C-alpha cells in the first residue's frame, strides 16, 4: 500500500489577463511507498513546485486523483485541509520559514500547539526529538541567533514533531552552503533509514543523489526516473548529471535512454 499515489494528475492555471490556459502539470502518475526517499528534479518552471503544492493539499488538481495515506485529497473539505496537513505532512522549505517571534522550542512545538496537544506530551516529544537533530542545547535560542544550517534543522524538527506520514522538502538545501547542505542531506538519509518517508523537490543533483529514487520533470510532464539500486551516491550523481544533460538538450526520454537511463532502469529493476 503506497503512502502517496498520484493518478493522471493535471493542473491548469488561468491567468486573469490571458485567455490562454497554462498547463503546469500534464498526466502525472507516481507512487511513493512507505519508507521511500524520493527526489523530484526539474528546472525552474518545470512544474515541481505545483506538484508539491498539490500533494500538500495547498492547491487542487484540475484532473486526476491524489491519494495520501489512504485519503483522497479532493474529498477533504477546505475547512479540514489545514488539520489534515498538520496531521499527515511535515514541511521543510528553502528559506526555513521559521517564525522570528518564537524561540527554537516554540517553533518546533507550533504544529503540536495547533492540534491542542497537552503540555507534558509536547515537552516529552520535543526533548526526545531535539538531540536527534543536534538541537538539544539550542532550544531557548531565537532563529536570528542560529546559522542557516541550524535554522533548517529547526525547520526539520518542526516538520517531524507530528510524526508525519510524509516529509515534504521543497529545495531544502537551496539557502545553505555546500558543507551545511551535506550535513542536512546526511540527516535526511538517517531519518529515512529510521523509517521516515521523504519526498524532496530540488534542482540540485547533489541533493537528489542522496535519495533512493529520482524523478525528473520537464514542462509539467514526468520525463524519467532513476533508481539508486546498489549504486553509490557518487555513481548515482553521475547518472543524474547525465539525465539532466540529456533533459536540458531537450532529447526525448528514449533518446536519452540510449546513454544513461537504460542502465538506470535496468539497475532499478534489479534493485526491486
Amino acid at each position: 500500500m503506497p503512502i502517496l499515489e498520484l493518478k493522471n494528475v493535471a493542473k491548469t492555471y488561468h491567468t486573469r489577463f490571458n485567455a490562454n490556459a497554462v498547463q503546469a502539470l500534464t498526466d502525472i502518475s507516481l507512487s511513493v511507498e512507505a519508507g521511500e526517499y524520493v527526489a523530484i528534479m526539474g528546472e525552474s518552471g518545470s512544474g515541481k513546485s505545483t506538484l508539491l503544492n498539490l500533494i500538500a493539499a495547498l492547491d487542487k488538481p484540475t484532473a486526476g486523483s491524489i491519494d495520501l495515506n489512504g485519503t483522497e485529497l479532493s474529498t477533504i473539505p477546505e475547512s479540514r485541509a489545514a488539520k489534515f496537513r498538520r496531521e499527515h505532512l511535515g514541511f521543510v522549505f528553502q528559506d526555513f520559514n521559521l517564525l522570528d517571534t518564537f524561540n527554537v522550542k516554540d517553533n518546533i512545538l507550533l504544529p503540536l500547539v495547533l492540534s491542542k496537544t497537552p503540555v507534558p506530551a509536547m515537552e516529552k516529544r520535543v526533548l526526545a526529538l531535539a538531540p536527534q537533530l543536534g538541537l538539544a542545547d539550542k532550544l531557548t535560542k531565537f532563529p536570528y541567533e542560529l546559522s542557516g544550517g541550524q535554522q533548517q534543522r529547526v525547520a526539520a524538527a518542526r516538520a517531524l514533531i507530528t510524526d508525519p506520514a510524509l516529509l515534504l522538502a521543497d529545495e531544502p538545501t537551496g539557502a545553505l552552503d555546500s558543507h551545511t547542505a551535506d550535513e542536512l542531506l546526511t540527516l535526511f538519509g538517517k531519518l529515512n533509514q529510521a523509517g521516515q518517508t521523504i519526498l524532496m523537490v530540488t534542482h540540485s543533483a547533489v541533493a537528489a543523489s542522496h535519495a533512493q529514487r529520482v524523478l525528473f520533470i520537464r514542462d509539467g510532464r514526468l520525463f524519467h526516473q532513476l533508481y539508486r539500486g546498489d549504486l553509490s551516491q557518487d555513481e548515482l550523481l553521475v547518472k543524474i548529471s547525465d539525465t539532466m544533460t540529456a533533459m536540458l538538450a531537450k532529447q526525448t526520454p528514449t533518446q536519452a535512454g540510449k546513454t544513461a537511463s537504460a542502465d538506470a532502469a535496468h539497475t532499478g529493476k534489479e534493485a526491486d
Partner: protein
Amino acid sequence: MFYFRLAATNLRAHKRIFVPFLLAMTLLAIMNVIMLSVHADAGAIFGNNGVGVQAAATEMFKYGAIVMVILGVILAWYANGFLLKQRTKQLALYNVIGFGKRELRLMVEAELALCAAISISLGVLLGIAFSRLSYLVLGKMLGVPGHVAFGLDAVPLLQAAGIIALIYLLLVLLDANWLRKHRPLEMLRAASAGEREPKTRWLLLIIGLVALSAGYAAAIGITDPLGALQWFFIAVVLVIIGTYALFIAGSVFIFKLLRKNKRYYYQPAHFINVANMIHRMRQNGAGLASITILATMTLVTIATTITLYCGVPQIVAATDPADLSYLRATSAETKKSAITPAQNQAQVAALAAKHHVKIVKRTVATISASVPLRFVGNRVRLASDQDYSGLFGPKPGLMSSDLMTLAHYNQMTGRHLQLVKNEILLGGTRPLKQTTLQFGRAEPLRVRGTAKMAYQPNAAAMGNALLVFKDEAAMTHAVRAFGSKVAHFAAATLAAPQTTVYLQLKGTDQHQIALTHAIDRTKLGAMNVRGAADNRRTVLHWMSAFLFMGILLGIMFILATALILYYKQVSEGLADAKRYRILQQVGLSEREVKQTINSQLLTLFYIPLIVAGVHTAIAAPFIQRVLTLFQIFNWGQFAGIVAATLAVFAVLYVIMYKATAQVYFRIVK
C-alpha cells in the same frame, strides 16, 4: 522637470501610503485656515461684547492656533517617518539602478513639493469653504445673526499656507538628513533580518507605574477645586508619561508573564498572539500610547467644553438669582440719599416700560448678613474650606444663607407674622426639613415655619437658605454661638443690613440688557446693578468660544488618531503578511489565520480605547472639581456628557478601526 515627472509617478504608484499623507496634510491646512480665520475675525465675531472680551477671545484663538500648529508638526513628522520607512525598498531599488544620494534627495524633494502644492491649494480652498461654514455654526451658538458677513481675509489664508509650507520645509530637511545618514541598500538588509526579542525594561516599567499612580492619585485625591486646577497639568503630564512607559515596557512585561504560564501560552489562540505581541509592542507601544493620549484628549476636551456650554444657566444663576437685581439704600439710610425708595421704584418702573420690559414681580429684601452655613441634621455650623472640597464637590448641606430679622421679613412679604423667643423661620432653594436648629453650642431654636425666598429658586448647585430671626439680638446671639472668631464680624455686619431689590422680568434678552444698562447709567440710588440676561450673553459667548475651539481641536485629535491607526494597520499588515503565510504552510487554516489576526488586532486597537476610557473616567471627577470654579456643580450632567462623548467616540473609533482593518486584510492576503 524630470524629477517632477518621476515624483508624480511615485505618488501614483504608492497611493496606499501617499493618499493618507496628502489627506492628513490637507486636513491640517484646512484646520489651520479655520483656526487662523476665527482668530483674525474674533473681533468681529465678538463684536457686541466689550473690548476686553474681544481681546481675550482673540488671544484664546491665538493659543488654539498655536496648539494646532504644534499638533500639525508632530503629525507631519510622524507621517513622514512612516512614508520613509515604507519606501526603503523603493529607494533602494532606485539606488541599485544608479541613483546617487543627490538624485534620491532631489526625487524626494520633488515629491514633497508636489504634495505641498496639492495640500496647500486644496487646503486653502476647502479651508475657505469650511471656515464660512464654521462661522455659521459659531454665529448660531453665539446668537449672532447668520447674515453677519465676514469678508474674505487674505491674511489668515496666507498665514495657514505659510505654516504648511514651513512644515513641508521641515520635512524636506528631515528627509535630506535621513538620506544622508542611511544607505537604502543596507536598510533593506537590516529590515529583512530577524529582530531581537525585546527585553523587559524594568526602569521604564517602574517609572510608568509610579507616574501613572501619581497622576491617578492626584486626580482622585486632590479634592480642593483650586488645588485641582493647579495640579491639573502636572497630573496630565504624569499620566502621559505613565501611559507611554507602560505601553512600551508594561505590555512586554505582561506578555512575558503570560508566556511563562505554560497552560495559558500553549493554546492555539494564545500561542501566536502572545509571542507576536512581545515583539510588536516594542515598535507599537509608542504608537498605541499616542492613540490613547489623543483619544483621551478628544474625550476630555469635547466633554468639558460641552459641559461648559450646557452649564451657562447654572453659571448665570449662581451669580444672578434674579433677572435683575440692585442694591438700594435701606429705608434708614434714605435721609442721606436724595432719592426715596418710592421714587426709585417709580423710576425703575418707568425705565422698564420705556425698554419694553414688564416687571412680573418685585421683591425688596433687607438682609443683615450672608454667610455660608453647613446644615448637618439639626445642627448648623459655619462652613469651612474643607466643606467646599469634598470628593464630589461641595459637601451636602452646604448653603449660602441669608440672615434676616422678622421685621424685614414682614416688610418684604407684607405679612404680620409673630415669633416668640427661640423661634425662627427657615426657607431654602432646596427642601430643608429641620424642625429645630442648633447654632454651635447655643440652645436649639424651634423652626416655626417656612420662610419664603426673596427670589426664584435657581439651578446653582450650592443651595441658598433664608433664616428669619425674631430680632437683631436673637440673630447676634445665634451667630456668636459659632465662636469668638465670628463674634467680631457679626457685630459689624449685622448692624448694617443691606437692601437688595430683586426683579423678575418679562421681555426679550435684548430689552432686558438695555434696561440693565439704563438703570446702571441713570442716577436713581441703585448700586451694583446686575442683569441675568446681560451676564448670560457674556457667559454664553465665552462658553461658545470654548466649545467651538474644543470641537476644532477635537476634530484635529480625531484626525491624528485616524492617521496613526491607518499607518499602524499598513505597517502591521506588511510585517504580518509573511508570518501568516508560514502559519498557513505549517497547518493553520485560513479561518484560523483570520481568527488569530482578528483577536490580535482587537487587542492592539481596542486597548487604547479602553485605556482612554479609564483615563477619562478617572479624570472626570477631577475636571468636575475644576468646573465647580465656574459654578457648575451638576455631577450627573457631567457624567452623562462624558458617557455620551465616550459612546460617540467609541462608535467613531470602531468605524475608523474597521475601515483601516480592511487595508490590513488586503495586505495580509
